[in-house]
């Protein structure tokens, strides 16, 4: 490891069936559990290298090839060929959290013609077309980083393309309502969103219904453009959804992604960001809410390879019920060329009942000292007693107080969507789910003897 490479990985696995009472109360405390600023200890190794293998190559071309100093963290392996990844067993770093049995159909790769039902709303300045598998557009996309993504790219045999004209200012969001039809067959899909220079747009992918869906999404953002991609996973129970989302952020462009995962049996989303020119900004927001037996996994990979770019990650999740399971992996890499980088990532998990488990692994690789700032924070715990006490001391009963707090916990991120109607709908879903909370135990009151 070269001396100017530093890395921090914080692994926190919270399994409240065992014990994490000492985590209670720290959830919202500012700075608690945070490791901010450039870390000072060189790490002996990290869990972030992914499936590195001999001959691994860099994806996308954002990183200046040849400029990677010897001893840098291994490059993440990417390939268009599903078989280049082998068939995951569940022991691999990238798959170790995923329930393999439930994701298996998306890894087997059986060909299928199954589709989601599309309901689209396309404002003026937006074109929806499709391209064949050999279209040059697809050649230029960031490569798949795991077998599931490679299968989705290959089996979808082409892609749907949303083109937003240069300098377009849309009067409303582009909305794709994508609903599952209940078929057992896997739906393979690839979507490309091409945003012209200086365009300003919001694109909403609204997933619902029952499906087994492996769907790649690539967002190519022109110079100076500003785009918000919202992906709502409001699947019916039993749905399985795995996908790789890639964003290539142009010079001085702004990318905002808001991921909202509420439904389905298993959702595993990999969101990658790279910058094709300096001055780009990426904000990745996410909320997830896992109930009994739901598995929700969000893996982020922000690759700073050019100077003066920003990234900001904020994911918040709540869990309730037996075997509710969430995984959040936040990898940020600042390559030697990425001077002037500013990055921060935050993950907070609110564990509402026993028997739920949240994993949170932020990981920061810093290969240049010339950055503006870099930090990450991760906290997993139960309700903050102080917040509950404060609300209750104003006459609000404990259950209402808890609901207010959880609602606020989510609203904080949901309001980043910027579309009031959608926000209200999602908050209503969350509130309904909160209502299902099994009788919250009464607040303990110390009794006089």
């Amino acid at each position, binding site marked *: 490891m070269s001396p100017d490479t530093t890395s921090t990985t914080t692994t926190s696995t919270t399994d409240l069936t065992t014990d994490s009472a000492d985590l209670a109360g720290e959830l*919202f405390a*500012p700075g608690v559990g945070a490791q901010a600023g450039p870390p000072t200890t060189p790490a002996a190794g990290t869990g972030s290298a992914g499936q590195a293998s001999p001959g691994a190559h860099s994806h996308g071309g954002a990183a200046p090839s040849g400029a990677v100093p010897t001893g840098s963290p291994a490059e993440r392996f990417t390939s268009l060929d599903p078989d280049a990844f082998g068939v995951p067993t569940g022991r691999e770093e990238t798959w170790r959290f995923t329930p393999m049995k439930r994701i298996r159909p998306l890894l087997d790769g059986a060909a299928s013609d199954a589709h989601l039902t599309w309901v689209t709303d396309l404002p003026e300045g937006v074109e929806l077309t499709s391209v064949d598998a050999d279209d040059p557009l697809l050649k230029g996309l960031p490569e798949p980083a795991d077998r599931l993504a490679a299968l989705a790219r290959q089996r979808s045999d082409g892609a749907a393309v949303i083109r937003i004209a240069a300098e377009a200012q849309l009067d409303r969001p582009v909305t794709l309502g994508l609903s599952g039809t209940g078929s057992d067959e896997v739906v393979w899909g690839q979507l490309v969103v091409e945003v012209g220079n200086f365009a300003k747009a919001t694109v909403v992918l609204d997933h619902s219904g029952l499906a087994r869906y492996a769907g790649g999404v690539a967002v190519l953002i022109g110079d100076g453009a500003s785009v918000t991609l919202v992906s709502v996973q409001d699947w019916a129970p039993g749905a399985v959804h795995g996908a790789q989302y890639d964003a290539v952020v142009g010079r001085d462009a702004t990318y905002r992604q808001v991921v909202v995962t509420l439904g389905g049996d298993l959702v595993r989303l990999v969101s990658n960001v790279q910058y094709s020119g300096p001055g780009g900004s990426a904000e990745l927001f996410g909320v997830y809410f896992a109930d009994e037996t739901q598995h929700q996994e969000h893996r982020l990979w922000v690759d700073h390879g050019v100077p003066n770019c920003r990234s900001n990650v904020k994911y918040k999740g709540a869990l309730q019920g037996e075997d509710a399971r969430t995984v959040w992996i936040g990898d940020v890499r600042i390559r030697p060329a990425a001077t002037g980088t500013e990055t921060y990532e935050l993950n907070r998990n609110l564990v509402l009942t026993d028997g739920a488990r949240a994993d949170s692994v932020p990981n920061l690789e810093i290969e240049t000292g010339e950055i503006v700032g870099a930090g990450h924070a991760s906290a997993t715990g139960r309700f903050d*007693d*102080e*917040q509950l*006490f*404060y*609300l*209750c*001391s*104003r*006459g*609000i*009963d*404990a259950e*209402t*107080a808890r609901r*207010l*707090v959880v*609602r*606020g*916990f*989510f*609203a*904080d991120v949901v309001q980043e969507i910027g579309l009031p109607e959608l926000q209200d709908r999602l908050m209503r879903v969350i509130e309904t789910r909160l209502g299902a909370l099994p009788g919250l135990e*009464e*607040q*303990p*009151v*110390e*009794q*006089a*003897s």
Partner: protein
Amino acid sequence: MSVDTQAGVSAATPSTGSVLEIRNLHVSVGEGDDAKEILRGVDLTVRSGETHAIMGPNGSGKSTLAYSIAGHPKYTITAGTVTLDGEDVLAMKVDERARAGMFLAMQYPVEVPGVSVSNFLRTAATAIKGEAPKLRTWVKDVKAEMTALEMDPAFAERNVNEGFSGGEKKRHEILQMRLLKPKIAILDETDSGLDVDALRIVSEGVNRTRAEGEVGVLLITHYTRILRYIKPDFVHVFVAGRIVEEGGPELADKLESDGYAAYVKDSNEQASAERAALEVGSA
């Protein structure tokens, strides 16, 4: 039965004064071997219409007293009673205490991300009054109080205490007291961290509440400067977990010139005497 009747009477005739009675209150923090006794027998009666100032050195247990009365789960009551109009406050949950008419303006108000001030205030008012206040008058009332406390209306849309300055948090506490109209208000160092103007504004808020109705105020403070705005009827000196002296407003002036040194010394001597007695007793 008699309790029911009493409650009915006091509800029908609000001018019937309330009384908070604290008797021999002992409170500790920590569990098992780490348990540490903070309050060592507090006796205090606060009636509506009265204003009591509690003054004492850092760490003497003033906030512990306030929090224990409000029901903070961190504190364990090991002996004693607290009643409001005869009702056992200690048997009530935190929210029930507030609905019974208790209010605590906290020394360190808590930030609640994602919950807006306006939502919070309305939820609290609904809980306390038992029904949602009529929207039109409510909005008007909130605006009027915020104006009186010189709070920017923008605060209504901010998250509860999030990013508020120290002084803004204190104004927000008093705003809540104004809107929730408690029978007994405990103000824990509401004056600290306020500049001269803010101190006046906040004090006037408290005085409006005092003038309006029959509220009993327990004012915890280090400094006499707030007592120039809010005239106490009684001053209590609080040292090492109990009240060691009581008097009228003149006691505050004496404390300002002489400090707590004399009381602290007395109290230390007494504590060691007690320990010695205990050792003899258990031997």
